[in-house]
């Protein structure tokens, strides 16, 4: 959280203020999550970074124009392997697959720590964030559960 050390008031109220500002925009910016630092099994960075980050910005810009191919995953849209231009880059198919992979088991942990973080703001946390969080948790849970078990654990 880049703003965590710099919000000059209660961060629960800060989240609410973001939603307020967002609601007033008729053409809001699209939101993207980036990570240049994913590592492979050898502990080395998979992505070359620096100037080659332009290839990721290219996909971002295409998405804002309604282009750029993506697959829907439990955490949102992720580029298809072909959607990132890797021409002129020494990057294996396997490395690209690892870079774009969404592993529900890993995300279950992330959801748990988000739960704790959000919990620290108590009733100051906007209900919209709580609802988004619950939906994310549900999608991750579903992705981890084999299809034939869906619904059983809730008694339906």
């Amino acid at each position: 959280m880049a703003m965590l050390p710099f919000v000059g008031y209660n961060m629960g109220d800060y989240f609410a203020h973001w939603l307020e500002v967002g609601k007033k925009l008729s053409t809001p910016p699209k939101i993207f999550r980036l990570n240049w630092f994913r590592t492979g099994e050898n502990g080395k960075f998979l992505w070359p970074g620096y100037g080659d980050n332009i290839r990721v910005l290219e996909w971002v810009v295409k998405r804002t124009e309604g282009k750029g191919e993506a697959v829907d995953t439990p955490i949102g849209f992720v580029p298809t392997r072909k959607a990132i231009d890797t021409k002129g880059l020494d990057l294996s198919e396997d490395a690209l697959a690892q870079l774009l992979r969404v592993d529900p088991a890993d995300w279950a942990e992330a959801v748990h720590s988000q739960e704790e973080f959000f919990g620290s703001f108590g009733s100051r946390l906007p209900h919209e964030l709580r609802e988004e969080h619950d939906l994310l948790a549900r999608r991750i849970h579903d992705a981890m559960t084999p299809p034939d078990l869906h619904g059983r654990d809730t008694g339906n």
Partner: protein
Amino acid sequence: MTALSSPVQRWVDEIKKMTTPDKVVVCDGSEEERERLTKECLATGELIELNQQKLPGCYLHRSAPHDVARTEHLTFVCTRHKEEAGPNNNWMPPSDAKTKLAGLYQGAMKGRTMFVVPFLMGPPGSRFSKVGVEITDSRYVVLNMRIMTRIGRVALEHLGGSDDFTRCLHSLGDLSPDRRFICHFPEENTIWSVGSGYGGNALLGKKCMALRIASWLGKKEGWLAEHMLILGLRTPEGKTHYLTGAFPSACGKTNLAMLVPPASKPGWKVETLGDDIAWLRKGDDGRLWAINPESGFFGVVPGTSRKTNPNAVEMIQKNTIYTNVALRPDGTPWWEGHDDPSPANALDWQGRPWTPASSEKAAHPNSRFTTPAEQCPSISPRWQDPEGVPISAILFGARRQRNVPLV
């Protein structure tokens, strides 16, 4: 001497009474002032002159060894009610903080000069810009503020006779971490910082005002102060999209803001508008618009090279203050990750003899450059547009070894 409006003068008088400086200097932001302060810093040792043939206008500053980074555990948000500060901030009641810090400020500027630095955050003439006045007893702080913000007349003109300015009080105190506090009083639009000469603790326009106080003002006034870079991305078709990016420290924000595309991506270009802070608000067209409140870059030096950030290398060749880097015998700076190999001998960031065999790093890992934004080769023609730029996308980044995909 530059004339101050009565609200500013009243506050200056109040602080003068508490800190009892030998003299008061109101900064006008002029070139003569920069030369005079630089000369004084060279005499006191606050600055060391670097090789002026190779690096014109460049100087080195060495911090106190225990004063090299922001100190979040000594940083407080002092609202009347604790819940207003939230679990994300350290909190002290405003009256306690005032009493405690007033004790430290009492007579703290005796034997020193008190500088009054009016500064503008945001482009001149922009209705979104904000004025602060920093009182400090550090020349190094003044010289940094004049790069990072627009100081002097331009700020006083923007303020006019108004009382609407952030009161930023800074004293080096005795530089002891035991007597160091960075306190924000958002309800009074005031910042009190004592005991540190380092960047974010002492250049009060940056994190203290343009983020912590500004985030509070933004909540009141309906806009956002964000820890974000701003860049323009020009496509091969000639269209420019503006993006902001929120990344925690040490995730390459400055590098991304100044990115140079590889030869295999012809036609793409990144234009830099800001590397650290964005003020965002709704435009009349229903889009989100951004300005960079700062006018300089305060970047981490180690790792800066022609490979990682050629634009940054280019821009720090002149008019730059280097803080806590190593010094080579020819009067040029060096750091880990520099394009040149390790020097056979140098002085480390504390001024001690250093060789490649030394166990410690030559430059402090958090050593910095302070350099004017206009020197950046990739600076956007719109970086000082009073209306800012419309934002098509916001990027959120972090340093994750697993689970978070590339994008």
